């Protein structure tokens, strides 16, 4: 079972928590410790109360736990905000003003006057960096690692910024050493280090999806900023020159998708990144992609709705939206990455499938996935292959030729001797408006044939467990993968299996057999109605026996799952 020390840093927006999180996770990793981090934050730029949770372990860690072992409060709201995750054993290191809470809560506290110490260095701004030094010292990170990171991070700002930050680190280490002499409890946080992981990658979901898009050959990314998907556009904009791609932040989501489809028509590998609300504006054009058979990859970051909802919180409630978006019937593919690695590989694959089948491919994410990160050894680029599906047209080219497979060879304007049509009406093979019932039937059948092909090529669900022993089976999709996996490790019963879907539509044909193996299938999803359970029921007519649903807007934790699965099983006997 994974043993981790869970660290939380909490303060106001604008206090630099993200900087500390980024430096600390890198530093821990470079010292040979595994890290997992995820953050939760309010939808505001200054003030409020945010926190980041960092798990540190000798073994790989990939999921969020509620329990806090060490808390660094950076504001007086930190402890009230996080008290439900604290225990008698939680160690709080911080300013007196942030510790003396009038709460019926006991914890171990160590007072460190971070602000005073920071003033001595020159500005209260350095208090976070001193705290970073203290934590790094407690976890026995070599000081040089921090100095290197500081230098790298503030390279452009020069010595004026680098030197005091280094001093702040040094101060933190001094205090760390003093505390260790004084408090026996700090010794229990010591963990064995594994030099092999020093060179690991450390990526969050946003970065992994953006890298996956580059790996998939993205050439045109269009977006309008909206949490939790803005980061992908930002990342790609910063890489645009290097990789020869166009990133356009457009006037609205309707223009976003129509531009991306225009670019796709002209042969570009197009991507749009949005969230539930923004995606709602795109649905007419998604149906257009279905009619024009244009490849397009659409990343939809789910956030708790309806309407503006909770912009920076997490959910899995837009599966239905993405499944049904757009008028009329047309084939589509929906992925829901379960982890950081999936985010990369599935995004790359999404581009390939979009080109191959000339359909929209969706990637469903959520705030938990895009804002979580952990170390992993590598991304396999060797087997990457971006097949070219564009053909050079001849004089008699017909864009929508009826073929046996349903897929018409895809020509683009300006490549070859032919002309390329795209018509939003029901159209002939040449792309001319048609109201002929036979043409309509053949066109519908063409779309049905493509759906069949797509279905046959679906990614099967991943099964973990002993198929012959299971009585219960947890079923889930998307970003809850590792949370459930760790919870099941903790529960440690051979009669519980786990079936996880990273492709949620069309579902693989093996699904039926998998579900039949268990006596009781328990769906875990973060929406109020069990959208994926309903999808399964609709598609393969198997009723899911129980549902564990969370819809608070805050992620499921390992503890949540342990408790709820235990409940579900005990209630089910």
């Amino acid at each position, binding site marked *: 079972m994974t043993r981790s020390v869970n660290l939380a840093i909490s303060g106001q927006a604008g206090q630099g928590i993200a900087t500390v999180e980024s430096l600390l996770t890198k530093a821990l990793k470079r010292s040979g410790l595994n890290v997992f981090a995820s953050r939760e934050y309010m939808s505001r730029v200054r003030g409020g109360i945010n926190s980041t949770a960092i798990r540190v372990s000798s073994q790989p860690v990939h999921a969020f736990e509620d329990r806090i072992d060490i808390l660094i409060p950076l504001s007086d709201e930190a402890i009230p905000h996080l008290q439900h995750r604290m225990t008698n054993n939680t160690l709080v290191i911080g300013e007196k003003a942030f510790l003396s809470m009038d709460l019926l809560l006991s914890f171990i506290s160590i007072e460190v006057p971070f602000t005073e110490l920071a003033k001595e260095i020159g500005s209260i701004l350095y208090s976070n960096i001193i705290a970073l030094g203290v934590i790094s010292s407690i976890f026995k990170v070599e000081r040089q690692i921090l100095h290197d990171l500081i230098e790298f991070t503030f390279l452009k700002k020069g010595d004026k910024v680098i030197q005091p930050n280094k001093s702040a680190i040094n101060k933190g280490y001094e205090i760390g050493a003093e505390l260790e002499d004084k408090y026996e409890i700090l010794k229990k946080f010591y963990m064995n280090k594994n030099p092999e992981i020093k060179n690991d990658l450390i990526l969050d979901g946003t970065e992994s999806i953006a890298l996956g898009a580059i790996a998939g050959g993205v050439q045109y990314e269009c977006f309008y900023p909206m949490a939790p998907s803005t980061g992908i556009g930002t990342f790609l904009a910063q890489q645009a020159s290097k990789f020869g791609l166009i990133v356009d932040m457009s006037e609205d989501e*309707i223009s976003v998708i129509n531009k991306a489809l*225009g670019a796709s028509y002209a042969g*570009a590998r197009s991507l749009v990144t949005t969230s539930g609300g923004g995606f709602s504006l795109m649905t007419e054009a998604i149906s257009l992609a279905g009619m024009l058979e244009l490849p397009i990859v659409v990343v939809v970051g789910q956030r708790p709705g309806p309407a503006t909802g909770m912009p920076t919180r997490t959910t899995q409630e837009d599966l239905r939206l993405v499944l049904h978006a757009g008028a009329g019937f047309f084939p589509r593919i929906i992925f829901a990455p379960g982890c950081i690695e999936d985010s990369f590989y599935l995004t790359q694959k999404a581009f390939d499938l979009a080109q191959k089948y000339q359909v929209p491919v969706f990637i469903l994410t959520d705030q938990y996935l895009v804002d979580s990160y952990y170390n992993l050894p590598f991304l396999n680029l060797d087997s990457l292959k971006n097949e070219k599906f564009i053909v050079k047209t001849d004089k008699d080219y017909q864009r929508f030729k009826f073929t046996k497979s349903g897929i018409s060879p895809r020509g683009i304007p300006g490549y070859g001797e032919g002309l390329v049509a795209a018509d939003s009406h029901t159209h002939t093979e040449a792309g001319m408006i048609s109201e002929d019932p036979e043409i309509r039937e053949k066109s519908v059948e063409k779309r049905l044939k493509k759906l069949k092909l797509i279905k046959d090529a679906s990614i099967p669900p991943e099964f973990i467990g002993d198929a012959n022993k299971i009585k219960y089976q947890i079923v889930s999709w998307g970003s809850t993968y590792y949370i459930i996996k760790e919870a099941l490790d903790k529960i440690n019963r051979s009669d519980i299996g786990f079936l996880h879907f990273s492709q949620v539509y069309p579902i693989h044909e093996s699904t039926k057999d998998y579900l039949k193996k268990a006596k009781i299938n328990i769906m875990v999803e973060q929406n109020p109605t069990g959208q994926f359970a309903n999808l399964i029921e609709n598609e393969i007519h198997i009723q899911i026996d129980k549902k564990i649903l969370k819809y608070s807007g805050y992620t499921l934790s390992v503890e949540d799952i342990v408790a709820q699965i235990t409940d579900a099983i005990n209630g089910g006997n």
Partner: protein
Amino acid sequence: MSDNFDKDVKIHWCPGCGNYSALRIVKESLTELKFEPKDIVIVSGIGQAGKFPHFMTANFYNGLHGRYLSTALGVKAANPNLEVIAISGDGCTLSEGGNHFLHTIRYNPNITNLISNNSVYGLTKGQASPTSMLGFKTKVQTFGVINEPFNSPAVAISLNASFVARAFVGDIEETKNILKQAIQHKGYALIDMLSPCVSFNKVNTFKWYKENSYYLEDSHNPLDQSEAMKVALNLRKLALGVIYKNPSRPTYEENIQIYNSDSRPLFARDLDKNKLEKLVNTFR
């Protein structure tokens, strides 16, 4: 002499529709400018004018109502070598697509935008359009239009559009001349193309347009934004010709950095795996 762009199809427009002349004007202008159908992409929206590309020979993208300017911009961005002509009506462009109209002007892609303007909804049978005159009565606007007409040339000039013209399809040669200038202009070129609807607009007829328009004199300086605005704001007497030009604005494609060092269209490019590997390794 427009045989290259001719297409042997039945045309769906009403007899006498202004779009017939518009079609001829477009086909002849492209032929006279020595374009081949395969160089051209006609992008259109929905409405009677939206059917335009079905009646001529070229690449085309007949997309959604109101969105054709976004589509055209995407096509042009992905392959600047294509000559993109965006055509749709006043309803599609200025009502459903108003936001895209504004912002496409700001981007300044090197495309030609023809608004086939008949001041009425044809496809949906006779409702008022955003350019219908105040008081124009229809089955829906039973007491007459109460909304101020959308003055697309004036709006375009206010946004410093790089080429703004008005034309009347009743004058084939003059309109061809304006269209050819628009196509050859580097940047977004708007033509507010007055095109009578013989079925639903009994006010703005061929005769009405003839009587209520005039050609700009040679003395008109299209480089002067204030003068151009004054001309455009006059909706009682409609100016025909090039009203405003700003040749100094860089085009959107010129502003897209990646084309500075490599002019290949996007489809002709490949992922550089070594660069990706390097990027991935920065996350260690």
